[in-house]
């Protein structure tokens, strides 16, 4: 609790004690009024003051005015205890709200506590703490154990484990050493590292993330717009209702005006839409906060809400469902040993830096003795001819084998097949493929459990490879051999198929798929650690490259929306019931203020659940 809240609490306790004693001590007439006016002034003095001041500024119908009118009216008709009680409960409700909002605000601030305060620059053998904004590209900064990495850069010297959990939600530390890229906002856990800065502070990951989360409130969700519109007519309508109730029935029925004024006051007490106005944005902000804690950055409440209606989820293949790194997955020799086949292929390809050559070298593991290669020639589009230890070795596609007249064997494995022939005689083949990510299959399974109608995969890769990946992962539809512009066309075709309310989600790695990310209802880019462009292109950004974050995001969005709807139904329902019972003369002021404050407290408590989503 802050100072102001503590002060309010002391005032309320004092006021409550005075109120109870006024209630218990028998008194009549002026003395009784005075005994109730004292606690009223203690607890509601500020409200009255603000109400009068705001009226002079032309600001009618704010909550100060409504509460003042309701309580002064209650005094006027002689309901002293009710007047004081309305003020007491209203203030308790306000205090609780400000406490709960303050708490949410702090926990969101903690979540976003990744902004670095300084960068260490070495000068004349001394470390000088410098404002990160003044660091230029190419400067060398020193990051000590326990410090945040202030700017993006490359490790020049030293090694350390870095904690990326504040950005990704991933608790496993990452080891970095000389030559590795490091991302601002991560915490250096143990070693001293020197980092060459390669992005200014304004362009660094940490700044982009903070901007994104802080600006997310500007994009409001539909329930927020509903509340904004609703609150604009609700208060005037309730006040108009109160006026009519106080004036018309006494004229018509010639009954006691006091009774109708009492009913009108109930309208005033319930006329503030505060509970809704605070609890809905608080819910969505909590949902966004809860997602960012898991490394899922949402650019606005509207996207978080839209995600709850996902109907079709479209994935890019390479780099999204697969690792985008090629591996040797099988070695099938003929007549020679596996190791021999791999050695020949790796040696023949040793002068190339094609991803396939790199993967062969990686699979071979040992150092390649290039001196054994006396001659090498690239056969464009087909492979390589090399002379190793005096023997002519051909490494490449089945077509290359056909050209040299070597009889090759087909392979049942999926992936790119590299055939090898020695002196024209077939020696076997090696299968190289992109590995499916560990959590891809689980992701698709979870999405189906979440009642996503259709999962789709788009890829520029060969049909055989694409179909195999789709089958392994149990993806409903797949479209292969697509050029980037074909992907946009396919997204449009899929968009036409979904229902009016349903949303299409596209998931890519943010590289080369900006048009597709923009065309989909919700574009999700993954792997923002390392690729700044992904942060700009998408509506939702995954800090790491795990597709399993997508079902998590959908779950958070659905839960957040559910809480928001609960709050709307709860708060509106209680208000309308109270209005109705008040108009009919069934409810009294006590009950009205209890209902109104109670529902505010419940709505605020309920919305804090959005922040504390655990799995």
């Amino acid at each position: 609790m802050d100072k102001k809240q503590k002060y309010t609490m002391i005032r309320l306790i004092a006021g409550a004690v005075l109120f109870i004693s006024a209630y218990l001590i028998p008194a009549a007439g002026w003395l009784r009024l005075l005994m109730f006016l004292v606690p009223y002034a203690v607890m509601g003095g500020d409200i009255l003051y603000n109400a009068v001041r705001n009226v002079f500024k032309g600001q009618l119908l704010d909550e100060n005015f409504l509460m003042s009118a309701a309580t002064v009216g209650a005094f006027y008709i002689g309901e002293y205890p009710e007047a004081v009680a309305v003020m007491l409960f209203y203030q308790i409700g306000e205090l609780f709200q400000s406490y709960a909002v303050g708490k949410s605000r702090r926990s969101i601030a903690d979540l976003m506590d990744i902004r670095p305060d300084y960068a260490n620059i070495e000068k004349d053998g001394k470390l000088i703490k410098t404002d990160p904004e003044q660091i230029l590209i190419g400067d060398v900064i020193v990051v000590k154990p326990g410090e945040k990495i202030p700017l993006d850069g490359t490790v020049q010297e030293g090694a350390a484990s870095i904690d990326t959990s504040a950005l990704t939600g991933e608790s496993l530390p990452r080891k970095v050493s000389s030559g590795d890229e490091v991302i601002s906002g991560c915490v250096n856990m143990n070693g001293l590292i020197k980092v060459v800065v390669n992005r200014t502070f304004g362009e660094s990951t940490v700044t982009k993330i903070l901007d994104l989360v802080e600006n997310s409130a500007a994009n409001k969700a539909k329930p927020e717009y509903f509340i904004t519109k609703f609150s604009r007519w609700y208060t005037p309508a309730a006040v108009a209702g109160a006026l009519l109730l106080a004036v018309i029935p006494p004229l018509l029925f010639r009954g006691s005006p006091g009774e109708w004024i009492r009913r009108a006051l109930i309208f005033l007490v319930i006329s503030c839409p505060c509970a809704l106005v605070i609890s809905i944005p608080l819910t969505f902000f909590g949902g966004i906060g809860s997602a960012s804690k898991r490394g899922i950055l949402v650019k606005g409440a509207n996207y978080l809400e839209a995600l709850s209606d996902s109907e079709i989820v479209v994935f890019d293949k390479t780099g999204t469902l697969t690792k985008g790194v090629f591996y040797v997955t099988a070695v099938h020799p003929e007549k020679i040993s596996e190791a021999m086949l791999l050695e020949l292929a790796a040696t023949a390809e040793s002068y190339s830096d094609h991803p396939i050559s790199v993967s062969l070298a990686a699979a071979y593991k040992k150092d390649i003795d290039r001196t054994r290669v006396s001659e090498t020639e690239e056969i464009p589009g087909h492979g390589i001819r090399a002379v190793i230890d005096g023997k002519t070795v051909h490494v490449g596609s089945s077509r290359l084998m056909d050209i040299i007249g070597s009889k090759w064997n087909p392979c049942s494995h999926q992936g790119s097949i590299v055939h090898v022939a020695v002196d024209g005689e077939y020696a076997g083949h090696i299968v190289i493929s992109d590995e499916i990510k560990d959590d891809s299959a689980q992701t698709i399974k979870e999405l189906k459990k979440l009642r996503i109608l259709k999962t789709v995969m788009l890829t520029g890769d060969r049909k055989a490879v694409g179909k195999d990946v789709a089958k392994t992962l149990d993806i409903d539809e797949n479209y292969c051999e697509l050029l980037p512009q074909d992907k946009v066309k396919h997204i449009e075709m899929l968009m036409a198929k979904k229902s009016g309310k349903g949303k299409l989600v596209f998931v890519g790695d943010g590289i080369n798929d900006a048009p597709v990310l923009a065309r989909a209802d919700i574009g999700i880019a993954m792997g923002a650690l390392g690729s700044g462009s992904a942060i700009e292109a998408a509506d939702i950004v995954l800090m790491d490259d795990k597709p399993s974050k997508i079902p998590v995001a959908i779950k958070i969005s659905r839960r957040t929306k559910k809480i928001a709807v609960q709050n709307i139904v709860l708060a509106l329902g209680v208000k309308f019931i109270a209005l109705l019972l008040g108009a009919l003369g069934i409810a009294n002021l006590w009950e009205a203020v209890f209902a109104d404050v109670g529902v505010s407290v419940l709505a605020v408590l309920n919305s804090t659940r959005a922040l504390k989503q655990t799995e």
Partner: protein
Amino acid sequence: MKKTFELENLHCANCALNMENAIRKIDGVQNASINFITRRMTVKITDAVSFEAVIKKVAAAIKRIDGCAVLELEGVYYG
């Protein structure tokens, strides 16, 4: 031009909504949004008008709705 301000002493969510509506009506303001939870206000201002003049009007609108709230930008207080 887009600027983000801190709003100190902002206490009521409904007031924040009213401020947002009032600020959007000011000439030269393209868009405004107030985040009650982070107490930040983002205002987009047309390039053709004077920044200072518009901000003065914005600060006045805020003061009219909630007398306690104070607008702050990079250490400078308005209103």
